[in-house]
Protein backbone atom coordinates (compact mmCIF):
# COMPACT_ATOMS: atom_id res chain seq x y z
CA UNK A 1 0.00 0.00 0.00
CA UNK A 2 2.89 2.34 0.78
CA UNK A 3 4.33 1.64 -2.66
CA UNK A 4 1.03 2.52 -4.33
CA UNK A 5 0.76 5.67 -2.22
CA UNK A 6 4.28 6.69 -3.23
CA UNK A 7 3.56 5.90 -6.89
CA UNK A 8 0.62 8.29 -6.93
CA UNK A 9 2.59 10.99 -5.12
CA UNK A 10 5.44 10.33 -7.55
CA UNK A 11 3.16 10.73 -10.57
CA UNK A 12 1.92 14.02 -9.11
CA UNK A 13 5.47 15.31 -8.60
CA UNK A 14 6.54 13.86 -11.94
CA UNK A 15 3.71 15.58 -13.83
CA UNK A 16 4.81 18.93 -12.39
CA UNK A 17 8.49 18.20 -13.09
CA UNK A 18 7.62 17.23 -16.67
CA UNK A 19 5.70 20.48 -17.28
CA UNK A 20 8.54 22.63 -15.93
CA UNK A 21 11.26 20.70 -17.70
CA UNK A 22 9.49 20.64 -21.06
CA UNK A 23 9.27 24.43 -20.89
CA UNK A 24 13.05 24.64 -20.54
CA UNK A 25 13.67 21.88 -23.06
CA UNK A 26 11.48 23.55 -25.68
CA UNK A 27 13.28 26.89 -25.32
CA UNK A 28 16.74 25.30 -25.23
CA UNK A 29 15.98 22.87 -28.04
CA UNK A 30 14.63 25.40 -30.50
CA UNK A 31 16.63 28.54 -29.70
CA UNK A 32 19.84 27.01 -28.23
CA UNK A 33 19.58 29.56 -25.43
CA UNK A 34 20.68 28.10 -22.10
CA UNK A 35 17.81 29.71 -20.23
CA UNK A 36 19.04 29.24 -16.67
CA UNK A 37 16.56 31.88 -15.46
CA UNK A 38 13.76 29.39 -16.19
CA UNK A 39 13.82 28.77 -12.43
CA UNK A 40 13.18 32.49 -11.94
CA UNK A 41 10.13 32.29 -14.24
CA UNK A 42 8.83 29.57 -11.93
CA UNK A 43 9.40 31.76 -8.86
CA UNK A 44 7.70 34.77 -10.45
CA UNK A 45 4.62 32.78 -11.50
CA UNK A 46 4.37 31.01 -8.13
CA UNK A 47 4.69 34.16 -6.01
CA UNK A 48 2.35 36.20 -8.21
CA UNK A 49 -0.32 33.56 -7.75
CA UNK A 50 0.40 33.44 -4.02
CA UNK A 51 0.21 37.24 -3.74
CA UNK A 52 -3.05 37.59 -5.67
CA UNK A 53 -4.58 34.67 -3.79
CA UNK A 54 -3.56 35.94 -0.35
CA UNK A 55 -4.87 39.42 -1.20
CA UNK A 56 -8.26 37.80 -1.73
CA UNK A 57 -8.73 38.22 -5.48
CA UNK A 58 -9.42 34.54 -6.03
CA UNK A 59 -7.97 31.77 -8.10
CA UNK A 60 -8.87 32.88 -11.63
CA UNK A 61 -7.21 36.28 -11.30
CA UNK A 62 -4.29 34.53 -9.64
CA UNK A 63 -3.81 32.20 -12.59
CA UNK A 64 -4.12 35.15 -14.99
CA UNK A 65 -1.52 37.15 -13.06
CA UNK A 66 0.88 34.19 -12.87
CA UNK A 67 0.55 33.49 -16.59
CA UNK A 68 0.97 37.14 -17.56
CA UNK A 69 3.97 37.48 -15.25
CA UNK A 70 5.68 34.38 -16.59
CA UNK A 71 5.18 35.36 -20.24
CA UNK A 72 6.25 38.96 -19.64
CA UNK A 73 9.42 37.84 -17.83
CA UNK A 74 10.33 35.34 -20.56
CA UNK A 75 9.76 37.82 -23.38
CA UNK A 76 11.52 40.75 -21.66
CA UNK A 77 14.51 38.58 -20.84
CA UNK A 78 14.68 37.39 -24.40
CA UNK A 79 14.32 40.88 -25.83
CA UNK A 80 16.64 42.81 -23.50
CA UNK A 81 19.24 40.23 -22.52
CA UNK A 82 19.47 37.33 -24.95
CA UNK A 83 18.90 39.22 -28.21
CA UNK A 84 21.59 41.87 -27.47
CA UNK A 85 24.05 39.17 -26.45
CA UNK A 86 23.38 37.05 -29.50
CA UNK A 87 23.76 40.08 -31.74
CA UNK A 88 27.52 39.74 -31.39
CA UNK A 89 27.51 35.97 -31.55
CA UNK A 90 27.23 35.39 -27.81
CA UNK A 91 28.47 31.99 -26.80
CA UNK A 92 26.93 29.41 -24.51
CA UNK A 93 28.96 30.97 -21.71
CA UNK A 94 27.82 34.60 -22.05
CA UNK A 95 24.16 33.61 -22.31
CA UNK A 96 24.43 31.25 -19.35
CA UNK A 97 26.12 33.81 -17.11
CA UNK A 98 23.66 36.59 -17.96
CA UNK A 99 20.70 34.28 -17.41
CA UNK A 100 22.21 33.08 -14.15
CA UNK A 101 22.77 36.66 -12.96
CA UNK A 102 19.15 37.59 -13.65
CA UNK A 103 18.07 34.47 -11.75
CA UNK A 104 20.02 35.64 -8.69
CA UNK A 105 18.47 39.11 -8.91
CA UNK A 106 14.92 37.71 -9.06
CA UNK A 107 15.55 35.28 -6.21
CA UNK A 108 16.72 38.10 -3.94
CA UNK A 109 14.06 40.62 -4.92
CA UNK A 110 11.36 38.03 -4.22
CA UNK A 111 13.16 37.18 -0.96
CA UNK A 112 13.15 40.84 0.11
CA UNK A 113 9.45 41.27 -0.66
CA UNK A 114 8.03 37.97 0.63
CA UNK A 115 10.74 36.81 3.06
CA UNK A 116 13.19 33.98 2.63
CA UNK A 117 11.18 31.36 4.50
CA UNK A 118 8.59 28.97 3.12
CA UNK A 119 5.10 30.20 2.28
CA UNK A 120 2.16 28.00 1.27
CA UNK A 121 -1.00 28.64 -0.68
CA UNK A 122 -3.94 27.54 1.49
CA UNK A 123 -6.59 25.58 -0.36
CA UNK A 124 -9.06 22.83 0.60
CA UNK A 125 -7.89 20.97 -2.52
CA UNK A 126 -4.68 19.95 -0.76
CA UNK A 127 -6.58 17.97 1.92
CA UNK A 128 -6.16 14.27 1.29
CA UNK A 129 -9.12 11.97 0.72
CA UNK A 130 -8.94 8.35 1.79
CA UNK A 131 -9.52 6.37 -1.38
CA UNK A 132 -8.85 2.92 0.00
CA UNK A 133 -7.70 1.63 3.33
CA UNK A 134 -4.49 3.54 3.99
CA UNK A 135 -4.35 5.26 0.61
CA UNK A 136 -4.61 9.01 0.83
CA UNK A 137 -4.74 11.16 -2.28
CA UNK A 138 -5.46 14.89 -2.46
CA UNK A 139 -7.47 16.32 -5.34
CA UNK A 140 -4.33 18.27 -6.31
CA UNK A 141 -2.73 15.00 -7.44
CA UNK A 142 -5.46 14.47 -10.02
CA UNK A 143 -5.35 18.14 -11.01
CA UNK A 144 -1.58 17.92 -11.60
CA UNK A 145 -1.93 14.86 -13.79
CA UNK A 146 -4.87 16.36 -15.68
CA UNK A 147 -2.90 19.59 -16.27
CA UNK A 148 0.00 17.58 -17.64
CA UNK A 149 -2.24 15.58 -20.00
CA UNK A 150 -4.09 18.67 -21.24
CA UNK A 151 -1.01 20.84 -21.69
CA UNK A 152 1.00 18.13 -23.41
CA UNK A 153 -1.97 17.27 -25.66
CA UNK A 154 -2.22 20.90 -26.78
CA UNK A 155 1.55 21.20 -27.14
CA UNK A 156 1.75 18.04 -29.24
CA UNK A 157 -1.02 19.16 -31.60
CA UNK A 158 0.59 22.59 -31.82
CA UNK A 159 4.05 21.27 -32.69
CA UNK A 160 2.64 18.68 -35.06
CA UNK A 161 -0.03 20.56 -37.00
CA UNK A 162 0.34 24.35 -36.75
CA UNK A 163 2.65 26.34 -39.00
CA UNK A 164 4.22 28.01 -36.00
CA UNK A 165 4.91 24.61 -34.42
CA UNK A 166 6.52 23.49 -37.63
CA UNK A 167 8.75 26.57 -37.74
CA UNK A 168 9.73 25.99 -34.09
CA UNK A 169 10.92 22.52 -35.00
CA UNK A 170 12.63 23.94 -38.08
CA UNK A 171 14.47 26.49 -35.93
CA UNK A 172 15.79 23.66 -33.77
CA UNK A 173 17.12 21.90 -36.86
CA UNK A 174 18.66 24.73 -38.80
CA UNK A 175 18.30 28.47 -38.02
CA UNK A 176 20.05 29.52 -41.24
CA UNK A 177 17.60 27.58 -43.36
CA UNK A 178 14.69 29.16 -41.46
CA UNK A 179 16.07 32.58 -42.46
CA UNK A 180 16.52 31.43 -46.04
CA UNK A 181 12.83 30.50 -46.19
CA UNK A 182 11.92 34.06 -45.23
CA UNK A 183 10.81 33.29 -41.68
CA UNK A 184 11.89 35.54 -38.84
CA UNK A 185 13.93 33.56 -36.26
CA UNK A 186 13.48 36.31 -33.67
CA UNK A 187 9.71 36.04 -33.90
CA UNK A 188 9.88 32.26 -33.60
CA UNK A 189 12.24 32.55 -30.60
CA UNK A 190 9.79 34.89 -28.90
CA UNK A 191 7.07 32.29 -29.44
CA UNK A 192 9.28 29.60 -27.93
CA UNK A 193 9.79 31.78 -24.84
CA UNK A 194 6.05 32.43 -24.57
CA UNK A 195 5.14 28.75 -24.73
CA UNK A 196 8.03 27.65 -22.53
CA UNK A 197 7.07 30.19 -19.87
CA UNK A 198 3.36 29.25 -19.97
CA UNK A 199 4.27 25.61 -19.35
CA UNK A 200 5.83 26.57 -16.01
CA UNK A 201 2.65 28.18 -14.66
CA UNK A 202 0.60 25.10 -13.63
CA UNK A 203 3.60 23.54 -11.89
CA UNK A 204 4.40 26.80 -10.10
CA UNK A 205 0.84 27.28 -8.87
CA UNK A 206 0.32 23.68 -7.72
CA UNK A 207 3.74 23.52 -6.01
CA UNK A 208 2.67 26.53 -3.98
CA UNK A 209 -0.14 24.45 -2.48
CA UNK A 210 1.70 21.12 -2.14
CA UNK A 211 5.35 21.62 -1.24
CA UNK A 212 5.30 25.33 -0.45
CA UNK A 213 7.36 28.14 -1.99
CA UNK A 214 10.77 29.54 -1.16
CA UNK A 215 12.73 32.10 -3.21
CA UNK A 216 15.75 29.77 -3.46
CA UNK A 217 13.77 26.92 -5.04
CA UNK A 218 14.63 28.20 -8.53
CA UNK A 219 17.89 26.26 -8.32
CA UNK A 220 16.02 23.05 -7.54
CA UNK A 221 13.70 23.74 -10.48
CA UNK A 222 16.72 24.21 -12.72
CA UNK A 223 18.39 21.04 -11.49
CA UNK A 224 15.24 19.06 -12.31
CA UNK A 225 14.81 20.80 -15.68
CA UNK A 226 18.44 20.21 -16.67
CA UNK A 227 18.38 16.62 -15.47
CA UNK A 228 15.14 15.86 -17.33
CA UNK A 229 16.41 17.56 -20.50
CA UNK A 230 19.62 15.55 -20.47
CA UNK A 231 18.08 12.25 -19.38
CA UNK A 232 15.31 12.68 -21.99
CA UNK A 233 17.73 13.68 -24.72
CA UNK A 234 18.51 17.29 -25.64
CA UNK A 235 16.09 18.52 -28.27
CA UNK A 236 13.45 15.87 -27.61
CA UNK A 237 10.29 17.26 -26.00
CA UNK A 238 8.76 13.78 -25.61
CA UNK A 239 11.97 12.52 -24.00
CA UNK A 240 11.99 15.40 -21.49
CA UNK A 241 8.36 14.65 -20.61
CA UNK A 242 9.12 10.98 -19.94
CA UNK A 243 12.27 11.85 -18.00
CA UNK A 244 10.46 14.43 -15.86
CA UNK A 245 7.80 11.90 -14.98
CA UNK A 246 10.43 9.24 -14.28
CA UNK A 247 12.45 11.58 -12.03
CA UNK A 248 9.35 12.43 -9.99
CA UNK A 249 8.47 8.75 -9.61
CA UNK A 250 12.03 7.79 -8.72
CA UNK A 251 12.28 10.53 -6.07
CA UNK A 252 9.04 9.39 -4.50
CA UNK A 253 9.68 5.64 -4.66
CA UNK A 254 13.17 6.17 -3.23
CA UNK A 255 11.43 7.09 0.03
CA UNK A 256 10.82 3.35 0.47
CA UNK A 257 14.56 3.00 1.07
CA UNK A 258 16.03 6.36 2.12
CA UNK A 259 15.11 9.45 4.13
CA UNK A 260 13.56 12.43 2.39
CA UNK A 261 16.69 14.62 2.47
CA UNK A 262 18.28 12.25 -0.06
CA UNK A 263 15.67 12.70 -2.82
CA UNK A 264 17.89 15.15 -4.69
CA UNK A 265 20.67 12.57 -4.50
CA UNK A 266 18.40 10.20 -6.44
CA UNK A 267 17.97 12.80 -9.20
CA UNK A 268 21.71 13.31 -9.29
CA UNK A 269 22.41 9.57 -9.43
CA UNK A 270 20.06 9.13 -12.39
CA UNK A 271 21.55 12.13 -14.19
CA UNK A 272 25.08 10.85 -13.58
CA UNK A 273 24.21 7.34 -14.73
CA UNK A 274 22.81 8.70 -17.99
CA UNK A 275 25.86 10.89 -18.58
CA UNK A 276 28.06 7.80 -18.20
CA UNK A 277 25.96 5.20 -20.00
CA UNK A 278 23.79 7.07 -22.45
CA UNK A 279 24.72 10.75 -22.89
CA UNK A 280 22.31 11.16 -25.80
CA UNK A 281 19.42 10.46 -23.43
CA UNK A 282 16.30 8.34 -23.67
CA UNK A 283 15.05 9.66 -27.01
CA UNK A 284 18.04 11.69 -28.20
CA UNK A 285 18.72 11.35 -31.87
CA UNK A 286 22.42 12.02 -32.19
CA UNK A 287 25.49 11.72 -30.01
CA UNK A 288 25.93 14.52 -27.50
CA UNK A 289 29.08 16.02 -28.94
Amino acid at each position, binding site marked *: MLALQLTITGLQTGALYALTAVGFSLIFGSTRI*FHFAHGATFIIAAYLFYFVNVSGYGVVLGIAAATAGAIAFGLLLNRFVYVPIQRDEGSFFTVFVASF*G*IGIVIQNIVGMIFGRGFVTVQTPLSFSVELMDGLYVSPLAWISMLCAVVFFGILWCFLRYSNLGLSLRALADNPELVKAFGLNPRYISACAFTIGSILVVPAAIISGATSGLNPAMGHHVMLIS*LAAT*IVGGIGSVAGTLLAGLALGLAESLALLYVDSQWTE*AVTFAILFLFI*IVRPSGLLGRSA*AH
Partner: protein
Amino acid sequence: MEAYLLNLVILISIYSILASTLNFIMGYAGIYSLAHAVFFGVGAYAGTFVATHFSASIFFTLPAAMIAGAVLSLILALPALRVRGEYFVAASLGLQVLAVTIFSEWKSVTGGIGGLIGIPPLDIAGFEVFKPNQFVFVTVVGLIIVLFIINRLVHSSFGRSLRAIRDSESAAAAFGKNVPLIKTISVVISSALTAVAGVMYASYLSFINVESFTLDTSVLIMAMVIIGGTGTQAGPIIGAALLLLLPSLISYLDFLPQTEIGSIQQIIYGLGMALLMIYRPGGIVGLKKQSGGGKK
Protein backbone atom coordinates in the same frame (compact mmCIF):
# COMPACT_ATOMS: atom_id res chain seq x y z
CA MET B 1 40.73 48.90 12.62
CA GLU B 2 43.97 47.02 12.14
CA ALA B 3 42.29 43.72 13.03
CA TYR B 4 39.51 44.54 10.62
CA LEU B 5 41.93 45.21 7.77
CA LEU B 6 43.94 42.06 8.50
CA ASN B 7 40.77 39.97 8.49
CA LEU B 8 39.76 41.51 5.18
CA VAL B 9 43.16 40.85 3.58
CA ILE B 10 43.10 37.23 4.77
CA LEU B 11 39.60 36.63 3.41
CA ILE B 12 40.39 38.39 0.12
CA SER B 13 43.51 36.21 -0.28
CA ILE B 14 41.55 33.01 0.40
CA TYR B 15 38.75 33.98 -1.99
CA SER B 16 41.33 35.09 -4.56
CA ILE B 17 42.70 31.54 -4.50
CA LEU B 18 39.17 30.21 -5.01
CA ALA B 19 38.44 32.64 -7.84
CA SER B 20 41.81 32.08 -9.54
CA THR B 21 41.43 28.30 -9.47
CA LEU B 22 37.91 28.55 -10.88
CA ASN B 23 39.18 30.97 -13.52
CA PHE B 24 41.80 28.39 -14.47
CA ILE B 25 39.08 25.99 -15.68
CA MET B 26 36.50 28.60 -16.72
CA GLY B 27 38.70 31.15 -18.43
CA TYR B 28 41.33 28.88 -19.94
CA ALA B 29 39.54 25.57 -20.52
CA GLY B 30 35.96 26.80 -20.98
CA ILE B 31 34.53 24.52 -18.26
CA TYR B 32 31.73 26.08 -16.20
CA SER B 33 31.48 24.58 -12.75
CA LEU B 34 28.76 25.34 -10.22
CA ALA B 35 30.45 23.06 -7.69
CA HIS B 36 33.56 25.05 -6.80
CA ALA B 37 32.45 25.47 -3.18
CA VAL B 38 32.26 21.66 -2.90
CA PHE B 39 36.02 21.33 -3.40
CA PHE B 40 36.59 24.26 -1.04
CA GLY B 41 34.50 22.37 1.52
CA VAL B 42 36.14 19.01 0.88
CA GLY B 43 39.53 20.65 1.45
CA ALA B 44 38.34 22.26 4.67
CA TYR B 45 36.78 19.06 6.07
CA ALA B 46 39.62 16.78 4.97
CA GLY B 47 42.25 19.15 6.38
CA THR B 48 40.34 19.44 9.65
CA PHE B 49 39.91 15.67 9.87
CA VAL B 50 43.65 15.10 9.52
CA ALA B 51 44.50 17.99 11.83
CA THR B 52 42.26 16.77 14.67
CA HIS B 53 42.94 13.03 14.30
CA PHE B 54 46.60 12.81 13.25
CA SER B 55 48.69 15.93 12.95
CA ALA B 56 48.08 19.62 12.36
CA SER B 57 51.27 19.93 10.33
CA ILE B 58 50.60 21.37 6.90
CA PHE B 59 52.82 18.64 5.47
CA PHE B 60 49.96 16.27 6.31
CA THR B 61 46.85 18.44 6.11
CA LEU B 62 47.59 20.06 2.75
CA PRO B 63 48.37 16.84 0.83
CA ALA B 64 45.36 15.07 2.40
CA ALA B 65 43.03 17.93 1.41
CA MET B 66 44.49 18.18 -2.09
CA ILE B 67 44.16 14.43 -2.67
CA ALA B 68 40.56 14.42 -1.41
CA GLY B 69 39.66 17.34 -3.70
CA ALA B 70 41.46 15.80 -6.66
CA VAL B 71 39.83 12.37 -6.29
CA LEU B 72 36.34 13.81 -5.97
CA SER B 73 36.83 16.07 -8.98
CA LEU B 74 38.12 13.11 -10.99
CA ILE B 75 34.91 11.19 -10.26
CA LEU B 76 32.88 14.17 -11.49
CA ALA B 77 35.07 15.12 -14.45
CA LEU B 78 35.76 11.73 -16.01
CA PRO B 79 32.20 11.11 -17.21
CA ALA B 80 30.91 14.70 -17.38
CA LEU B 81 33.71 16.09 -19.54
CA ARG B 82 33.38 13.53 -22.31
CA VAL B 83 30.29 15.39 -23.47
CA ARG B 84 29.21 18.97 -24.16
CA GLY B 85 29.52 21.91 -21.77
CA GLU B 86 25.86 21.87 -20.70
CA TYR B 87 26.36 18.43 -19.19
CA PHE B 88 29.10 19.67 -16.90
CA VAL B 89 26.96 22.58 -15.72
CA ALA B 90 24.14 20.16 -14.91
CA ALA B 91 26.40 17.56 -13.28
CA SER B 92 28.23 20.16 -11.17
CA LEU B 93 24.93 21.73 -10.04
CA GLY B 94 23.78 18.25 -9.03
CA LEU B 95 27.03 17.59 -7.17
CA GLN B 96 26.73 20.90 -5.33
CA VAL B 97 23.21 20.12 -4.15
CA LEU B 98 24.18 16.57 -3.16
CA ALA B 99 27.34 17.75 -1.36
CA VAL B 100 25.36 20.13 0.88
CA THR B 101 23.21 17.16 1.96
CA ILE B 102 26.31 15.05 2.64
CA PHE B 103 28.06 17.89 4.50
CA SER B 104 25.03 18.25 6.78
CA GLU B 105 24.38 14.51 7.26
CA TRP B 106 27.84 12.92 7.62
CA LYS B 107 28.06 13.96 11.26
CA SER B 108 31.14 11.94 12.26
CA VAL B 109 33.36 13.87 9.81
CA THR B 110 31.60 17.16 9.13
CA GLY B 111 29.83 17.71 12.45
CA GLY B 112 26.50 18.04 10.64
CA ILE B 113 24.75 21.40 10.45
CA GLY B 114 26.37 22.50 13.72
CA GLY B 115 29.79 22.16 12.09
CA LEU B 116 33.19 21.60 13.65
CA ILE B 117 34.72 23.80 16.33
CA GLY B 118 38.19 24.07 17.81
CA ILE B 119 40.07 23.41 14.58
CA PRO B 120 43.82 23.52 15.39
CA PRO B 121 45.93 26.36 13.93
CA LEU B 122 48.20 25.76 10.96
CA ASP B 123 51.41 24.03 12.00
CA ILE B 124 54.24 24.97 9.65
CA ALA B 125 57.31 22.90 10.58
CA GLY B 126 56.53 23.14 14.29
CA PHE B 127 55.59 26.84 14.19
CA GLU B 128 51.92 27.40 15.03
CA VAL B 129 50.25 30.17 13.07
CA PHE B 130 47.08 31.56 14.56
CA LYS B 131 47.53 35.31 15.16
CA PRO B 132 45.94 37.30 12.31
CA ASN B 133 49.16 39.27 11.69
CA GLN B 134 51.01 35.99 11.11
CA PHE B 135 48.17 34.32 9.27
CA VAL B 136 47.99 37.14 6.77
CA PHE B 137 51.50 36.25 5.56
CA VAL B 138 50.54 32.61 5.17
CA THR B 139 47.47 33.37 3.07
CA VAL B 140 49.23 35.98 0.93
CA VAL B 141 52.16 33.62 0.32
CA GLY B 142 49.66 30.82 -0.38
CA LEU B 143 47.93 33.03 -2.94
CA ILE B 144 51.24 33.94 -4.58
CA ILE B 145 52.22 30.26 -4.83
CA VAL B 146 48.86 29.30 -6.34
CA LEU B 147 49.05 32.21 -8.80
CA PHE B 148 52.60 31.19 -9.72
CA ILE B 149 51.55 27.59 -10.38
CA ILE B 150 48.59 28.72 -12.50
CA ASN B 151 50.76 31.24 -14.34
CA ARG B 152 53.36 28.56 -15.16
CA LEU B 153 50.62 26.16 -16.32
CA VAL B 154 48.89 28.76 -18.47
CA HIS B 155 52.12 29.70 -20.22
CA SER B 156 53.20 26.10 -20.80
CA SER B 157 52.22 23.92 -23.72
CA PHE B 158 49.47 22.55 -21.47
CA GLY B 159 48.01 26.05 -21.17
CA ARG B 160 48.14 26.54 -24.92
CA SER B 161 46.28 23.25 -25.39
CA LEU B 162 43.65 24.45 -22.91
CA ARG B 163 43.07 27.70 -24.78
CA ALA B 164 42.97 25.83 -28.06
CA ILE B 165 40.23 23.62 -26.62
CA ARG B 166 38.32 26.62 -25.29
CA ASP B 167 38.38 28.36 -28.66
CA SER B 168 37.58 25.29 -30.74
CA GLU B 169 37.30 21.78 -29.42
CA SER B 170 37.13 20.15 -32.81
CA ALA B 171 40.19 22.05 -34.07
CA ALA B 172 42.17 20.98 -31.00
CA ALA B 173 41.06 17.38 -31.46
CA ALA B 174 42.02 17.56 -35.14
CA PHE B 175 45.53 18.59 -34.11
CA GLY B 176 45.80 15.39 -32.12
CA LYS B 177 45.01 16.78 -28.66
CA ASN B 178 43.28 14.39 -26.28
CA VAL B 179 40.55 16.87 -25.38
CA PRO B 180 38.77 14.96 -22.55
CA LEU B 181 42.10 14.08 -20.90
CA ILE B 182 43.42 17.64 -20.97
CA LYS B 183 40.13 18.99 -19.60
CA THR B 184 40.04 16.37 -16.85
CA ILE B 185 43.62 17.15 -15.78
CA SER B 186 42.80 20.86 -15.61
CA VAL B 187 39.75 20.21 -13.40
CA VAL B 188 41.79 17.94 -11.09
CA ILE B 189 44.58 20.54 -10.72
CA SER B 190 42.05 23.29 -10.09
CA SER B 191 40.19 21.27 -7.44
CA ALA B 192 43.37 20.25 -5.63
CA LEU B 193 44.46 23.90 -5.40
CA THR B 194 40.96 24.90 -4.27
CA ALA B 195 41.26 22.44 -1.39
CA VAL B 196 44.33 24.39 -0.18
CA ALA B 197 42.10 27.42 0.33
CA GLY B 198 39.76 25.18 2.32
CA VAL B 199 42.52 24.15 4.75
CA MET B 200 43.54 27.79 5.32
CA TYR B 201 39.95 28.91 5.78
CA ALA B 202 39.19 26.18 8.32
CA SER B 203 42.22 26.80 10.50
CA TYR B 204 41.90 30.58 10.26
CA LEU B 205 38.31 30.60 11.55
CA SER B 206 38.90 27.46 13.69
CA PHE B 207 35.21 26.80 12.97
CA ILE B 208 33.50 25.53 9.82
CA ASN B 209 30.01 24.40 8.96
CA VAL B 210 28.05 23.64 5.82
CA GLU B 211 26.92 27.28 5.45
CA SER B 212 30.29 28.23 3.96
CA PHE B 213 30.14 25.62 1.19
CA THR B 214 26.66 26.00 -0.29
CA LEU B 215 25.58 26.87 -3.80
CA ASP B 216 25.59 30.53 -2.78
CA THR B 217 29.36 30.30 -2.27
CA SER B 218 29.87 28.64 -5.66
CA VAL B 219 27.83 31.42 -7.23
CA LEU B 220 29.78 34.09 -5.36
CA ILE B 221 33.10 32.67 -6.58
CA MET B 222 31.77 32.48 -10.13
CA ALA B 223 30.61 36.10 -9.89
CA MET B 224 34.09 37.13 -8.69
CA VAL B 225 35.69 35.56 -11.75
CA ILE B 226 33.18 36.93 -14.23
CA ILE B 227 33.00 40.46 -12.85
CA GLY B 228 36.78 40.68 -12.48
CA GLY B 229 37.50 39.25 -15.91
CA THR B 230 37.48 35.67 -17.11
CA GLY B 231 40.69 34.38 -18.60
CA THR B 232 42.86 37.12 -17.08
CA GLN B 233 45.31 36.77 -14.18
CA ALA B 234 44.38 39.92 -12.29
CA GLY B 235 40.63 39.70 -12.92
CA PRO B 236 39.69 37.08 -10.30
CA ILE B 237 41.66 38.91 -7.58
CA ILE B 238 40.04 42.23 -8.40
CA GLY B 239 36.67 40.49 -8.49
CA ALA B 240 37.27 38.84 -5.11
CA ALA B 241 38.36 42.12 -3.52
CA LEU B 242 35.42 44.04 -5.00
CA LEU B 243 32.75 41.56 -3.96
CA LEU B 244 34.16 41.15 -0.44
CA LEU B 245 34.30 44.93 0.02
CA LEU B 246 30.73 45.27 -1.23
CA PRO B 247 28.97 44.44 2.08
CA SER B 248 30.96 47.12 3.95
CA LEU B 249 30.29 49.63 1.18
CA ILE B 250 26.57 48.86 1.34
CA SER B 251 26.54 49.37 5.11
CA TYR B 252 27.88 52.91 4.59
CA LEU B 253 24.82 53.76 2.54
CA ASP B 254 22.26 54.59 5.21
CA PHE B 255 19.21 54.66 2.96
CA LEU B 256 19.48 50.92 2.26
CA PRO B 257 17.85 48.54 4.76
CA GLN B 258 20.73 47.10 6.82
CA THR B 259 19.01 43.77 7.41
CA GLU B 260 18.96 43.07 3.69
CA ILE B 261 22.69 43.55 3.04
CA GLY B 262 23.12 39.95 1.88
CA SER B 263 20.26 40.25 -0.60
CA ILE B 264 21.39 43.64 -1.88
CA GLN B 265 24.90 42.29 -2.38
CA GLN B 266 23.55 39.37 -4.40
CA ILE B 267 21.29 41.64 -6.46
CA ILE B 268 24.24 43.90 -7.27
CA TYR B 269 26.46 41.10 -8.47
CA GLY B 270 23.66 39.29 -10.26
CA LEU B 271 22.85 42.47 -12.15
CA GLY B 272 26.56 43.08 -12.67
CA MET B 273 26.97 39.67 -14.28
CA ALA B 274 24.04 40.20 -16.66
CA LEU B 275 25.07 43.74 -17.65
CA LEU B 276 28.71 42.76 -18.18
CA MET B 277 27.66 39.92 -20.46
CA ILE B 278 25.65 42.34 -22.59
CA TYR B 279 28.17 45.19 -22.75
CA ARG B 280 31.55 43.82 -21.76
CA PRO B 281 31.83 40.03 -21.74
CA GLY B 282 35.54 40.19 -20.86
CA GLY B 283 34.82 41.57 -17.37
CA ILE B 284 36.40 44.62 -15.72
CA VAL B 285 39.97 43.69 -16.59
CA GLY B 286 39.26 42.14 -20.00
CA LEU B 287 39.24 44.20 -23.15
CA LYS B 288 35.89 45.43 -24.42
CA LYS B 289 34.28 42.91 -26.77
CA GLN B 290 37.51 41.01 -27.16
CA SER B 291 37.58 37.73 -29.01
CA GLY B 292 39.59 35.87 -26.35
CA GLY B 293 39.02 36.09 -22.62
CA GLY B 294 35.48 35.52 -21.51
CA LYS B 295 33.98 34.87 -24.88
CA LYS B 296 33.69 31.50 -26.53
